[in-house]
């Protein structure tokens, strides 16, 4: 952290941010910086998309509390959420990194992407655009999120949804339910 502080002091960078990190690591590093009067991270760059939402549990609420900027990487999961499952592109034909990042959860991810495809078709939108709409209404975007909404959403899960039954996927549903609760409160 001191090395990063030196980079800011020397004027080579204006701010520092953290990328792809666990909540406990971020909190620990911020504490170390604070204790020593060094530059703290102002932003976090986590992976965040419909097939990877793990960050909603710990680090996104942490960033919200600390008023840190959040800049997701692979907002469309390297294209996986931008076209029907299994679509061949010039890029993914020679891409060895994507299978390393997402390959192990292919079976789970396919369900989500298939559902996204159905939702997009039902609304006459591209998958990328449908994804952005779901994402931009997420409580983890600006404003609206309070912890109790999570509890309400869990209780009411599947009770109400703006999605048609044919499109129901648990992960998409949770998002939709949290969303509707936030809008109501």
């Amino acid at each position, binding site marked *: *952290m*001191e*090395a*990063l502080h*030196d*980079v800011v002091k020397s004027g*080579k*960078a204006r*701010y520092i*941010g953290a*990328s*792809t*990190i*666990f909540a406990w*690591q971020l909190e*620990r*590093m911020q504490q170390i910086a604070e204790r020593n009067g060094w530059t703290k991270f*102002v*932003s976090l*760059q986590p992976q965040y998309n419909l097939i990877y939402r793990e960050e909603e549990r710990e680090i996104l609420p942490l960033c919200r509390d600390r*008023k*840190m*900027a959040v*800049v997701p*990487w692979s907002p469309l999961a390297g294209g996986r959420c931008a076209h029907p499952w299994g679509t061949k592109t*010039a*890029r993914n034909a*020679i*891409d*060895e*990194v994507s299978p390393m990042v997402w390959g192990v959860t292919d079976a789970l991810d396919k369900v989500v992407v298939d559902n996204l495809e159905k939702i997009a078709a039902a609304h006459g939108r591209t998958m990328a655009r449908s994804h952005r709409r779901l994402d931009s209404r997420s409580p983890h975007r*600006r404003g609206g999120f309070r912890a109790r909404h999570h509890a309400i959403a869990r209780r009411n899960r599947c009770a109400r949804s703006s999605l048609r039954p044919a499109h129901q996927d648990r992960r998409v549903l949770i998002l939709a339910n949290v969303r509707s609760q936030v809008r109501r409160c």
Partner: protein
Amino acid sequence: MQYIKFGNTGMDVSRICLGMMSFGKPGKENGVFPWARDYDDAKPLFKKAIDLGINYFDTANVYQMGSSEEITGRLVRDFGLDRDEIVVATKVNCASTWTTSISTRYTASTQTRRWRRSWRRSTTS
């Protein structure tokens, strides 16, 4: 283009950031993203982005072994962008942080060295 405050910094950034990982020297010999597009392909895309009001660009030292940073620096210079009006983010660690401890990856000397190289690539190329 919509602009938002970047956390609590007071900086205004466009809500859409252009990921510069797409750009770099193509080919396997130049890094793990053989599909990367070189300067000439990046130029029209970058122009479109700045015409739309995007003022936020994200690169990294590992993107095609630094050539993404070089292209980013060159584009910023060639389009005469005001350094006070744009935000360029880069990254200096070369591996993800899955399980290893912070202390082994973030030693002061490696960090400073990577920063120095990063800075040189994006400002002088």
